[in-house]
């Protein structure tokens, strides 16, 4: 993304009003981020690949649910 596109996406998609200087310093990091996104998009997901967060988290939340 060039500076104008960064500002446009920021404003129209994310609700961020970025100055030209803000947008300029984001160009290189966003290019790096796009490479990472390309890397993960190469991985075909299966329907059963659920987001792994923590093996404990779901149980713990249920255990801590307040009694009625």
């Amino acid at each position, binding site marked *: 993304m060039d500076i104008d596109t960064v500002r446009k996406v920021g404003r129209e998609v994310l609700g961020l009003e970025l100055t030209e200087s803000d947008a300029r310093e984001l160009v290189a990091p966003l290019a790096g981020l796009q490479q990472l*996104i390309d890397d993960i998009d190469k991985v075909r*997901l299966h329907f059963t690949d*659920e987001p*792994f967060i*923590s*093996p404990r988290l779901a149980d713990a939340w249920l255990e801590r649910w307040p009694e009625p």
Partner: protein
Amino acid sequence: MTVDESAATDLAAVADMLEGGTTTCTALVEQAIARIERVNSTLNAFVTVLADSAREEAATLDAELRRGQRRGPLHGVIIGVKDIIHVAGAPTRAGSRSVGTLIAQQDATCVAHLRSAGAIILGKLHSHELAGGMTSENELYGRARNPWNPDYIPGGSSGGSAIATAAGLVHGALGTDTGGSIRVPAAFCGVVGLKGTLGRVSRSGVLTRSWTMDHVGTFARRVCDAALLFQAIAGHDPVDPYASHRAAPNLVARLQGDVHGLRVGILTGSFFETSLDLQIGSAFDTAIGSLQALGMRTIPVRFDLAAAAHAAGTIITVAEADSTQEQVLRERPEQLGADLRVQLRAAEFISARQYLHALRIRAQVRVELEALFRDVDVLITPTTSALPTRSEGRTTPASLLLFARNTRPFSMAGLPAISLPAGMSKEGLPIGLQVVGRPFDELTMLRVANAYESATQWHTLTPPD
């Protein structure tokens, strides 16, 4: 014997000296404070020295010893704590002007465990801003320096913990590791850095960078000491919903177990080989030879999802970090350093689909690693593929990716991992070896690391004074 000298041996020697009456907790604290006064202006490891409370704790512990009471092997051990972990009565600033002056009302669970085991908390240690980088340079504290050569970065984000341990300011330290923030500075500063399985150590009282990736762990000069400290902080904590229900493992008593015949996986393939520094590669080859000489079987293995794991781990981390700092970024971005502000702003461009895709890849990474661990007992890699660089004044996105290249894939899978000294570059900078274990099998990983350490001399080297 001073803290510096005793830290270079092991904590058992400290215990012997205290028990034999050849030193006292008070003397150890005074020696450590004197050393901090002498070298910290150069190294910038300590950002808060808790001299008064440390002296009070030392007096209490000395009185207990005089009564014949000893809390255990950590009685009188001097500890520093990364400044994103709460220590009661001390400010937690996390290297960021955005945090303000937050005085912790109570200890983090890990600190409370160490304190009750008899450790003395001497102060708070430098952290890269909000644990969000690997150079340990920020606008609040300034630049932390590598004790082997102050022109070079110490690594991060737990840079202060690694420096303080290497420079003999403490016997050990606490740090946190999201993608390599314990192991990378440990490697760069020539000490041992240990993180356990995801959930092994409570994160209650620790500021969050990434809910699903953060680990708390330990630093020491010896594998056995890092394990001793780790054993004291591990275990279930009902306050932390991410904490495992498993009891703290007894690691130290079984550390000397037989390693003959253990299967050591050597990760091969372009991800681990293409960007590898030649000196690090050479040190790694020598380390493989040492493990073989100890009777371990080394087996080349492939981790095909490594690049995707690294990418997904980075996306998860920065997206979650952006969410934790959302208000600061929107309402008072000027309170964030330039490098972190840009990192978090860029993360705002990650879509929900991309974040979830990264989280779902974790499931595939786990499946691949589970299959891989059917054929091996541990995996090894160089801790970093690059040597520490000269200080540039800020973390670049490229350095964030490069330094964590070999560590982040295992963080995102939640596996236990340790870095230990395994060489020196011709520039006189340390090189680290990473050993990775199966989930909740820290013991086998530590046995391999301990055996390697016992067969080599790298851990005996200390930075120039």
